[in-house]
C-alpha cells in the first residue's frame, strides 16, 4: 500500500504530526513532507491506483493522467515554496492548516470519483479557514465565518449535485459531465463558487486580504486553481463558460483600480487570471486545455510571488494599503526587484512565464474564432499590466509621498521569492520544459514574431496610457476607503428587508401565543375538574358506588349479549 500512497495523504498525515515536534524542528519536517510527496508523485506510474470499495462504490483516491499530474506538480511546488516562505512563522495553527490545506488540494486533484472529490473539497474549505482565523482579529474572524459559509455551501451543493447525478446516471466517476439536467448544473454551480464566478466571487476579495502574511500566499495557490482543474476535468468545452470567463476577466479590473489595499487588488487580479482559465476551459480544445494548465502552472508561481512581496511589505511596513506605502525601494531593494519580476510575469511580458501561458489561451481563442472574447481578453491583459505591472510596484515602492524606512524582508522570505522568480524566468526563457509536462501533445511555438510583437505593442501602449493618466491626475488617487461591490446585496439590502418583516412577525407571534395560552389554561382547568384529586374520576368513591359500577357493568354486558 505504501507504493500507492496518494501524495495528498502524506501531506495531511504529516501535517498532523507537526505540533508534536519542538518548535525549531518543525520547519524541517514541514519541508520534508512536500518534498516526499513530490518524490512519491514522480515515482508513481500513470493510471488508477488506491481504489477502495466502500458501500458498493469504488472510490479512486489516486488517478494520475496528464491533467492531474500538472496540477499536482505545481501544487506541490507551491507547497514547498510556501513552507520556505513561512519558515519564520512558528504559529502551529498556520503550519498545520497550511499543509493540511495543501495536502487536501493535492488529494483532490488526484481523486477519481466525485464522492472523494467532495471529501477533499470540504477538507480544503475547513483547513483554509484556519489560515484566515490565524490572524486572530475580529475582522478576520467575521471574514473567516463568511468565507466558511460560502465554501461549505459550495461543498454541500456539490454533494447534492453528486447525489442527484448518481441517481440519474448511476455513476460517480469524476470525468466529462454534460451540462444537461439539474445535477450537473449544481456541480457546475459548486465549482463556480470556488472558482469565484461573477457575483459568487466576493469571498475571495473579502477573505484573502484578512488572512495572515503567510496565509494569503498559501490561500492564493490552491482553492481557485483546484476549482479551475475541476472545471477543466469535467466541463471542458461548455460554451457558457467562455462568456463567464470573459466577464470574469474584465469586471475585477474595474474594482482593482479603485481598491486601496494592495492585497485586495491582487485578489481582484487573481480573479481576472481565473477568468482567462475559465475561457480556456470553455473552448475545450486540446490547445486551450494546455493553455489552462500552463496558465495555472505559471499563474500559481507569479501570483504567489506577488503575494509574497506584498506579504513581505506588510510584514515589515505593517500595512499593505497603497495610501500608507511609498519609497520602499531604498529599504527593501530585493523585494522591489522580485515584485517587478512578478509584475512582468503576470503582465505576460515576453521572456517571462506569463507570456507563454497567456498566448496559448489567446491562440486557442483565436483558433476558436471567438473574436469578441479575444478582444476582451486583450483589454483585460492590458488592465492587468496596468494594475500589477505598474501600479503595485509604483504605489508600493516608488511613490514618494510617505517615505517609509524599514528593514529588508527576512532571509527565508527572500529565498522563497528568489526561487519563485527564478522559476518564472526559467519557464519564460525555456518553455519546452513546461510544454513537456502539459497534458496534450500540441505543436505550439510561442516565440513567434507575431506573438511577441503584439504583446510588446500592447504593453508599450498600456504603459503610455498609465503615465499620461498619472500625470494628469485622472488616475484615481489611493484613498483609504472600503468599497463594497456586489456583496452589498447580502450585507446591506437583505438585512433591511428582514428588519421590516421581523417586527411584523414578532407582533403576530406574540399575539398568537397569548391566545393559545388562554385556551390551554382553560383546557387544563377542565381536565383538572374531572381528573384532579377531587375530580369525579379520582375521588375515593364510597364502596357502595364502586360496587354499583360492577353491577352496572354486569347488567350492560348481559343485556348486550342478549341483543346479539
Amino acid at each position, binding site marked *: 500500500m505504501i507504493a500507492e500512497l496518494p501524495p495528498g495523504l502524506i501531506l495531511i498525515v504529516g501535517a498532523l504530526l507537526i505540533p508534536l515536534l519542538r518548535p525549531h524542528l518543525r520547519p524541517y519536517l514541514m519541508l520534508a513532507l512536500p518534498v516526499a510527496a513530490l518524490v512519491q508523485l514522480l515515482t508513481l506510474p500513470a493510471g488508477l491506483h488506491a481504489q477502495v470499495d466502500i458501500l458498493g462504490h469504488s472510490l479512486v483516491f489516486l488517478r494520475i493522467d496528464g491533467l492531474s499530474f500538472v496540477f499536482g506538480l505545481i501544487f506541490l511546488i507551491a507547497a514547498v515554496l510556501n513552507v520556505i516562505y513561512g519558515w519564520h512563522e512558528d504559529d502551529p495553527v498556520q503550519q498545520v492548516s497550511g499543509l493540511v490545506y495543501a495536502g487536501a488540494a493535492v488529494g483532490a486533484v488526484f481523486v477519481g470519483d466525485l464522492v472523494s472529490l467532495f471529501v477533499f473539497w470540504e477538507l480544503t474549505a475547513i483547513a483554509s479557514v484556519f489560515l484566515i482565523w490565524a490572524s486572530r482579529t475580529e475582522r478576520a474572524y467575521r471574514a473567516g465565518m463568511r468565507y466558511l459559509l460560502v465554501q461549505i455551501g459550495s461543498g454541500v451543493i456539490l454533494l447534492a449535485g453528486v447525489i442527484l447525478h448518481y441517481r440519474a446516471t448511476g455513476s460517480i466517476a469524476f470525468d466529462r459531465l454534460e451540462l444537461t439536467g439539474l445535477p450537473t448544473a449544481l456541480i457546475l454551480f459548486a465549482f463556480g463558487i470556488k472558482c469565484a464566478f461573477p457575483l459568487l466571487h466576493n469571498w475571495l476579495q473579502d477573505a484573502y486580504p484578512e488572512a495572515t502574511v503567510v496565509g494569503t500566499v498559501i490561500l492564493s495557490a490552491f482553492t481557485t486553481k483546484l476549482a479551475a482543474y475541476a472545471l477543466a476535468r469535467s466541463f471542458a468545452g461548455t460554451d457558457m463558460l467562455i462568456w463567464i470567463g470573459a466577464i470574469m476577466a474584465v469586471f475585477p479590473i474595474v474594482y482593482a483600480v479603485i481598491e486601496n489595499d494592495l492585497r485586495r487588488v491582487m485578489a481582484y487580479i487573481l480573479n481576472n487570471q481565473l477568468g482567462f482559465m475559465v475561457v480556456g476551459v470553455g473552448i475545450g480544445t486540446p490547445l486551450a486545455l494546455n493553455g489552462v494548465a500552463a496558465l495555472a502552472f505559471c499563474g500559481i508561481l507569479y501570483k504567489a510571488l506577488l503575494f509574497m512581496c506584498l506579504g513581505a511589505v506588510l510584514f515589515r511596513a505593517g500595512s499593505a494599503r497603497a495610501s500608507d506605502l511609498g519609497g520602499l525601494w531604498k529599504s527593501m531593494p530585493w523585494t522591489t526587484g522580485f515584485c517587478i519580476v512578478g509584475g512582468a510575469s503576470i503582465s505576460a511580458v515576453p521572456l517571462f512565464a506569463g507570456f507563454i501561458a497567456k498566448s496559448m489561451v489567446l491562440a486557442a481563442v483565436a483558433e476558436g474564432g471567438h473574436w469578441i472574447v479575444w478582444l476582451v481578453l486583450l483589454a483585460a491583459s492590458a488592465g492587468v499590466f496596468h494594475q500589477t505591472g505598474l501600479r503595485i510596484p509604483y504605489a508600493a515602492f516608488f511613490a514618494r509621498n510617505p517615505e517609509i524606512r524599514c528593514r529588508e524582508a527576512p532571509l527565508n522570505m527572500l529565498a522563497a521569492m528568489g526561487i519563485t522568480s527564478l522559476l518564472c524566468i526559467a519557464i519564460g526563457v525555456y518553455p519546452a520544459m513546461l510544454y513537456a509536462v502539459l497534458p496534450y501533445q500540441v505543436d505550439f511555438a510561442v516565440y513567434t514574431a507575431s506573438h511577441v510583437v503584439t504583446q510588446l505593442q500592447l504593453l508599450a501602449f498600456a504603459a503610455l496610457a498609465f503615465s499620461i493618466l498619472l500625470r494628469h491626475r485622472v488616475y484615481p488617487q489611493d484613498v483609504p476607503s472600503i468599497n463594497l461591490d456586489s456583496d452589498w446585496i447580502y450585507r446591506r439590502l437583505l438585512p433591511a428587508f428582514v428588519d421590516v418583516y421581523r417586527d411584523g412577525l414578532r407582533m403576530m407571534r406574540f399575539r398568537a401565543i397569548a391566545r393559545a395560552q388562554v385556551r390551554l389554561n382553560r383546557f387544563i382547568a377542565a381536565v383538572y375538574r374531572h381528573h384532579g*384529586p*377531587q375530580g369525579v374520576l379520582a*375521588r*375515593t368513591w*364510597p*364502596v*357502595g*358506588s364502586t*360496587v*354499583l359500577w360492577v*353491577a352496572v357493568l354486569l347488567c350492560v354486558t348481559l343485556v348486550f349479549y342478549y341483543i346479539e
Partner: protein
Amino acid sequence: MSLDDVLGLFNYWMVIVLMMTGLYIVVSRGNLVKKIVGLNIFQTSVFLLYISMGKVSGGTAPILTGKPEVYSNPLPHVLILTAIVVGVATTALGLALVVRIKNAYGSIEEDEIQTMDLVAESEAETTGHRR
C-alpha cells in the same frame, strides 16, 4: 313459560332475588357492618344456587346406605362447604377491619370516614405545596 317452567326455575329465581337483595344492601347502605351482612346474604344465595343445582328430585342425602337409592349430587355440597368457610373467613376479616376502622376513625359510617379522609388529604397537599 309453562307452569313447570316456573316450578322448575323458582328456586333459581329466588336465589337471584336474594343475590340482588344482598347486592343492594352492600351498594346502598353506608354502615360497614350492614355491608358485611349484605355480603353474607349475597354469598348465602350463591350457596343455595349450587345446592339447588345438585338436588335430584326423589334423591336422598349422598350418604351410602347399602340399599340401592337415588342420591343427590355430592359435588356441589363439597364446593359449598369450601365456599361457606371462605364466606366466614371474609366476614371475620371484614369485622376485624371494621373494629380497626372504628378505633382509627371513631365511626363506621362510610360517608363520615370519607369526609375525614378528604379533609386530611387536602391538608397534606396544601402544607406540602406551601413549603
